[in-house]
Each structure stands twice: as structure tokens, then as C-alpha cells.
């Protein structure tokens, strides 16, 4: 009775590496591991350049998740963990990264990562992750000037979206697109509570709504909550979004519309920003020592 025929929330895990970087002559090799509540990323940088990374689901044990992600990142390279000079752990499980030399919060790491990935003109970073959303203001060096996090409610988080993906039986990767395919933008749902999502969605479907409309109504409600967070901190250009939900076009589009500001679109995986930041901070720490 409990088994779903398919796990719709499951997004793909993968790894990547730069084919043409010779790490053997490098001055410094650093890594960042972001053990999030939902996903874990490991990023390896060689002299401050992206060398390899992996993106995996976080399991029930943080140390294992960290190890698995790192192994996965290094899998197709000939680099071994013991050749990495300095590792910084971040994310919810940051203190549980067994091979990390230091830890840093994901707030500092996303700030630094966004600064590196999008450039020094970024001033506002929105990290939409598995368990919370963070609105971060940063300076030209990628340092945190101010930040805000959402309240202790799972509504409007990545985990919440996964629950809804399962509920409506739509693959999470397609959720955003599907939610945009509506004739008319519906009213946002009255409560985005994940726990009560099913009764809410059932009620709507019973009223003759289509799945797309329900998705749209959810995405809109979520965008609304996140927009409130951003308005609270006061949004400044340039604005970028990191974290897994940045891949959900349904939420991003609605958020942009509500804020009247367009987020810079990345040409890389938004989920790795935190780990990239961690690897950069690792480099800085190593340099300073």
C-alpha cells in the first residue's frame, strides 16, 4: 500500500569533470562538499578552476553521503582524495564530512559560489534548497552582507516540491514546465502545507482542475512565499538563484514576475554553487596559511 509505482521526486544523479586540466602540476587542489538535506555535491578545484564535481542524493548518513559524492566526482579522473590539499564541508551535514578540514555554512558558501559562477556584479543570491530558502545579500568579493532564512515550515521548500511531485505523479524535472502549461494562471493555493497538500490538491482536482493547474497554483503560492522573503531583505541587482529549485522554471518564472526583476540565467548546474563556494573558501584558507 505504501509503495508508489514510480518515485517521481527522484531527480538524476550525475558527475562531470574537465577533460583537459592537468592536476599534477597544480599548485593547489581544493574541494568543497555540500551535504544538503536533500542532495550532496562534491566539487574539486584545481588552482581555482573547476575540475570535477558530482551531484547525489543525501542518504540517511551524512558521512557516507559525503564520501559517495566525492568518490563519484573523482570516479572518472585519476585524482585521489589524498591528493586534495584542503577540503571545506558545508550544508546541513557539514560537521559530518569525515575528510573536511574546516566547515562553513552554506550561506557563506552560496554567496562565494554565486560570486564566482556569475561574476562580481551579483548582489542578491536566493538559494532555494531542500529544506529552506535563503535570501543573501553579498558584496563584490562574495562576502555576506546580510541574509534571511524562511520560517520553520516545509511549505515552499524543495522537499515540499518532491512530496507534491509524488502526489501528482509528475517527474520533478518536468514539474516546472508542466506548471507553465496552463491556459490561465490560477489563484495560488490557500495553504502550501506539504502535509495537507493532498487534501488540498484533491479538493482542486475534484473541482475539475487539471494537474497542470494544480501545479501552477502550488508554484505560484511557493513563489509568493519566497518573494516575501526577498522583499523582506530588499532585493538588489544583480539577482541570481542557486540551489536545486532554480531548475524549476515554473517557480523561477513566477518569482521573477512577482518581483518584477529577472534572475541571471546560469550555464551550469545551480545545485553546485554551495560546494563551489566551499572549494573556493578552502583555497583561500589554504592560501592564508
Amino acid at each position, binding site marked *: 500500500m505504501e509503495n508508489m509505482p514510480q518515485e517521481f521526486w527522484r531527480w538524476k544523479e550525475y558527475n562531470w569533470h574537465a577533460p583537459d586540466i592537468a592536476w599534477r602540476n597544480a599548485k593547489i587542489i581544493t574541494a568543497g562538499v555540500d551535504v544538503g538535506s536533500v542532495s550532496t555535491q562534491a566539487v574539486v578545484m584545481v588552482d581555482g578552476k573547476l575540475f570535477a564535481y558530482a551531484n547525489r542524493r543525501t542518504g540517511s548518513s551524512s558521512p557516507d553521503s559525503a564520501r559517495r559524492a566525492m568518490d563519484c566526482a573523482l570516479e572518472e579522473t585519476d585524482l585521489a582524495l589524498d591528493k586534495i590539499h584542503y577540503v571545506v564541508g558545508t550544508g546541513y551535514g557539514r560537521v559530518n564530512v569525515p575528510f573536511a578540514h574546516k566547515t562553513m555554512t552554506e550561506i557563506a558558501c552560496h554567496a562565494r559560489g554565486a560570486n564566482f559562477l556569475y561574476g562580481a556584479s551579483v548582489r542578491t543570491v536566493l538559494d532555494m534548497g531542500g529544506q529552506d530558502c535563503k535570501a543573501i545579500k553579498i558584496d563584490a568579493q562574495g562576502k555576506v552582507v546580510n541574509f534571511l532564512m524562511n520560517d520553520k515550515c516545509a511549505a515552499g521548500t524543495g522537499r515540499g516540491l518532491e512530496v507534491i511531485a509524488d502526489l501528482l505523479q509528475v517527474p520533478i524535472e518536468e514539474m516546472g514546465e508542466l506548471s507553465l502549461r496552463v491556459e490561465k494562471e490560477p489563484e495560488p493555493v*490557500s*495553504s502550501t502545507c506539504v502535509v495537507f497538500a493532498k*487534501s*488540498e490538491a484533491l*479538493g482542486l482536482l475534484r473541482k475539475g482542475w487539471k494537474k497542470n493547474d494544480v501545479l501552477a497554483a502550488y508554484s505560484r503560492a511557493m513563489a509568493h512565499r519566497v518573494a*516575501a522573503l526577498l*522583499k*523582506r531583505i530588499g532585493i538588489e541587482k544583480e539577482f541570481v538563484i542557486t540551489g536545486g529549485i532554480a531548475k524549476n522554471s515554473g517557480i523561477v518564472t513566477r518569482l521573477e514576475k512577482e518581483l518584477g526583476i529577472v534572475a541571471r540565467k546560469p550555464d551550469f548546474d545551480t545545485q553546485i554553487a554551495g560546494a563551489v563556494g566551499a572549494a573556493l573558501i578552502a583555497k583561500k584558507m589554504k592560501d592564508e596559511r
Partner: protein
Amino acid sequence: MSERRYKKLKTAPQLKKLLEQHYLAAKYFHLGKPIAWVTSGAPVEIVRALDIFPVYPENYGALCGARGASAAMCQVAEARVYSPDLCAYARSSVGMMSDAKHAPLGGLPRPDLLITCGNICGTVLKWYEAAARHYHAPLFILDTPFIHADDGEPTAHAIAYVAAQLEELIAFLEKQTRRKLSKEKLLATAMLSSEAVSLWCDVREFCRARPSPLNAPDLFLNMAPIVTLRGTKECAQFYRALKEEIAERVARQVSALPEEKYRLVWDNIAIWHHLYRFYNHFVDYGACFVTDTYTGGWAMRMNDQGDPIHAFARTYTQVFLNQSLRVRVRDMADLITRFDVDGFVMHSNRSCKPYSVGQYDIRRIVTEQTGKPGLVIEADHSDPRSYDDETIRARIQTFMEGLR
């Protein structure tokens, strides 16, 4: 918003005009009179007698709720780091102060003076402090100590304290307006105020008739002038007309509802943002709210013995929200017997803690005393974001199933 499904009042256009004129005048035609923001429980007679033009942010809050503007206004405040858990009247008002783009009628006029009276809640102190900071307007706080006594009587020292502050208020207003308060004018205003209040009491009493000539939304809407125009000629005039109409309804046994099968009492502030939709769920069962604790809150008759300042002090300290749970139980039980009802519905109002904290106990005790069942519904008087029609309907259905 859904339509009302029960009889319209002939005086409705008159009411509409009266209120429109009030807000228009506040905005454009106050003719150089200073504008004071006052709380619903402030001794407005003194303000009027000094030719100051009072406006009521709370009433305006209700208007914003009814017009569906509250949520947007609240969001402005929330973006300015006000917590979404604060009273939505106050929150929307704070939103309006910094940005009036969502505010109906272009927002309230800027206050020259602020007068807050704590007899309804602690929120109004903080709200008016925020206004004072924003507008740099002088703030007068009338501190009316809460009454925990079972008999609802304030202590002698509380009355003396309030009376002393009233004298201070007069001095403060005289200084601000550079006018002298005329005792005659104060008495005349108090008389007009008394008259309207007493007519309003009569209107409410008419609803003891079976079938009731009015349903709760009528009471809510028709209460507005008592709050905003108390002490004016127009106000008394309106209630005379209203009383006449209701008297006639009662004489001809005209019912507010198509068919009155159940009679209920309402507790707490109206659910402004879904006024008809919400109350229609009861109309579906033929259930009429024949009376309520909220609009009765302004049916206090002025205590006219002795010195008027003392009478004011006593009356304004004794308003129902400044009274203990025991007094609220007593009043509720009294309504239940006098209006011969089948049950009561309590709106647990997230916005309004003084009105809502204690409701569970009030409900239990009142049911024990009267045998009448009570339903608690959680919502908010003006922020629609915590209103969920589906759940609320299920609660109402269960309650009505039990009333048979």
C-alpha cells in the same frame, strides 16, 4: 465575493452614503480641522467637542478587509519586517503608512494627532507607536487598566487614574488645537452619542423576535456609524431610520433569512474578507445569527451619574474587551437566554488575541451553564490568507448535524 442571500435593508444606501461621506470628508473636506487617529474604544466625544476630526484606522481595517485589499497591504508591512502574526488591522495599516498603493480610497489621511486607548488590546499601543514614529505626530495614550474582577467593576484607583488622564487628554488637545473645551459642547456630543448607542441597543434587542429581522452581517455593517460617527447628528439620525425599519420588520414578522430554522450567537469580529461566503454556509442550513458579542460591544450606555469625566472614565474602562473571562461568560450566557438561541459560534481570530485567548474555556463553561453547544472556527478577521473555506465548511456541517 459571494452575494448575500437574505433580505436587503432599505436603509442600506443611506448607510453607504454616510460612510462614504465620512471617508471623503476625512480626506478632503475636514475644513482645516486637525485629523486625529483614534482607536475604537477612545473617548471620541471629547475629540469631537474640540472640533477635531476623528478617523478610525480599525474601521478602515475592516473596510480594507471587506474590499479584499488587506492581504496586499499586509504584505507591504511584512516586506518591512513586520511579523505576519500581528493583528491584520494593524499590519495592513502599517503597510498603508509606507505605501498606499493597495489601500482603498487612497489610504487614510495623515494624522495630526494620535490617540490610543488600551481598553481593547495591547496592539493599539504598538500600532500607534508605529504611526507616531512614521508621521512624527504627537501620541496620547489613554491607559485603562484591565478589569479582572468578577463583577466587571473597575477599582476606584483605576477610575481615578483614567479620570486624571482624561483631564490630561483635554489639556493635551486644548494645547494642540489652541481651543478651550466647552462643557456644553461636550455634553451635547455625549447626548448625541448616548442617543445613537441607545437606538443601536434597541435595534439589537429587536432581534429577539422570531424570526429575527437581522442576520449577523447586517449587524456588522450597521455597526460602522456607532464606531466612526458616534456623537454626530447624522449618526443618531441614521439609527433612528434603521430602528424604524427594523420595528416595521418585526411588526410584520419579516425574517432576515428565507426561513429561520436555527438561531445562533456570534462571538468575535466578523470575517470581513469572506463576509457573505462565510455566513451563507449557515444560511444554507437556515441558521441565523440573531445576536453577537462584537457589535454589542458598542452598545454600552453612558453612565450618566455625577461628573461627566468620571462617567467617561467608568464607561470607557468597562468596555467588554477590557473585561475578564468570567464577565464574558456571563454576557454570552445572557445573550443565549435572552435571544433564545440553539447554539453559538466563536471565531477564533488569529489577529485578535484579547478577544480569542480564553475562548475554549468560555465555550466550555457556557455550554455547561446553558446546555447550548458552541463551535470554534479558526480564521482571521481581515487577512484572508488564513481562511480555508473547505475545512470551515466541514466544521460547520458537523456542527449543524449535531444541532438537530
